């Protein structure tokens, strides 16, 4: 097992190198997925292109419509970002349960998205925010919705030599909150058995659901948005009945597998429970933030 390690100093150079080496090349950011996959013999790239120090791709910026997160932003940076401690706290909650501090100090959110594990923890909260990805490549730049980007376990729509350059999403409406819940077999250092993110918007009185967006991880080949569950909430009174119904519909929409971590039945049960719990937490947060 060996490869050449390249360290381009600009985005253009990185894209050019990737174009030059073609399918034998891989980008490496934090390396927490790539290095382990190489060591396990799952991939054998001839060229690794180190993007970890490329300028301008790390950090979080407020934009006119919302936020832009650089793909090289680490989980620990997300966790500690002041602007994410309020209604967007699902981002903090998801970042805070990835591995331990050592992983979160170096692993990047861009790597989590492109690695496209069905259990990737940072993907569901971004799905509920309708995040889009900016992509640069040999054929030019494009923008794609995250939900269209991940196409299967470990599969994305990324073309040869293409690089994710930003993750963007709009600001939440008034009376909104988000929440993220992960269930593993232990509290830390664990891959999700199931994880769920929710984003809920209530009406001005704080009692009725205007809209809800849900995303479920590790319960299908990709993280999924259970659309019937989301639609079922619109116009309903916010509370146990509507949240439980949404949980049931989300469980029906999921297609989990049985594996060493849990059975499919157990996963489906967890989807229902965690969706209800995440919606409840959103409603509590909206109530708590009201003057």
């Amino acid at each position: 097992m060996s490869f050449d390690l390249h360290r381009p100093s600009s985005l253009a150079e990185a894209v050019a190198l990737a174009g030059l080496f073609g399918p034998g090349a891989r980008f490496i950011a934090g390396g927490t997925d790539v290095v382990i996959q190489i060591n396990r013999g799952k991939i054998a790239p001839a060229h690794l292109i180190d993007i970890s120090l490329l300028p301008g791709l790390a950090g979080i910026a407020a934009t006119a419509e919302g936020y832009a997160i650089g793909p090289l932003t680490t989980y620990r940076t997300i966790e500690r970002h002041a602007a994410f401690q309020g209604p967007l706290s699902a981002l903090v909650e998801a970042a805070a349960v990835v591995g331990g501090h050592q992983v979160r100090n170096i692993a990047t959110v861009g790597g989590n998205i492109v690695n496209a594990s069905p259990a990737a923890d940072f993907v569901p909260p971004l799905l509920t925010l309708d995040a889009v990805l900016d992509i640069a490549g040999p054929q030019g730049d494009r923008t794609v919705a995250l939900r269209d980007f991940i196409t299967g376990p470990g599969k994305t729509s990324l073309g040869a030599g293409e690089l994710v350059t930003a993750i963007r999403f709009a600001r939440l409406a008034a009376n909104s909150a988000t929440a993220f819940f992960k269930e593993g077999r232990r509290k830390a250092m664990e891959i999700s058995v199931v994880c769920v993110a929710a984003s809920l918007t209530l009406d001005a009185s704080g009692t009725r659901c205007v809209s809800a967006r849900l995303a479920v991880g590790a319960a299908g080949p990709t993280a999924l948005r259970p659309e019937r569950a989301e639609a079922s909430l619109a116009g309903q009174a916010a509370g146990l009945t509507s949240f439980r119904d949404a949980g049931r519909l989300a469980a029906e929409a999921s297609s989990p597998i049985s594996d060493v971590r849990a059975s499919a039945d157990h996963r489906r049960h967890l989807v229902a429970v965690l969706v209800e719990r995440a919606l409840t937490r959103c409603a509590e947060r909206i109530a708590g933030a009201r003057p």
Partner: protein
Amino acid sequence: MSRRILNVVINGERHELLIEPHWTLLQVLRGQIGMMGTKENCLEAECGVCTVLLEGKAVNSCILLAGQVEGRAITTIEGLGDPEHLHPLQAAFIEHGAVQCGYCIPGMILSAKSFLDENPGRQPTRQEIREALAGTLCRCTGYGKIVDAVAAAAQRMAGKEPTP
């Protein structure tokens, strides 16, 4: 795939080394330089005994390619203090009897340092300390005293308690 030169600053000292592209920082530290304070175990970033500081932040050296730290600053346990000049964390681990077999301790101390340096002067809760150390396993399971030691060191580093 050819050997290449790696320039890296370890514990304040400049090193120029000849490495293979697939070598990890852990392999370089132990195999090339002969610094044995950084431990080797799971090799998949699960256990934390290989923890070093990369520009002050705790990372797992077992899955960090040495080539990725070109030009950057690494701190290992050897760089933290010595028997005459213990770092407050090292002193606190000794005082609180937080060391049993010792294998995880370099990783514990460096994980704790990285975490405490994020918010200098602030006293973390025990829960926060436990979370900060979750990526570092102690199979002697002496976690209680390790948390005691980190809490005490945090106080001392914040200047709220004089060094004895």
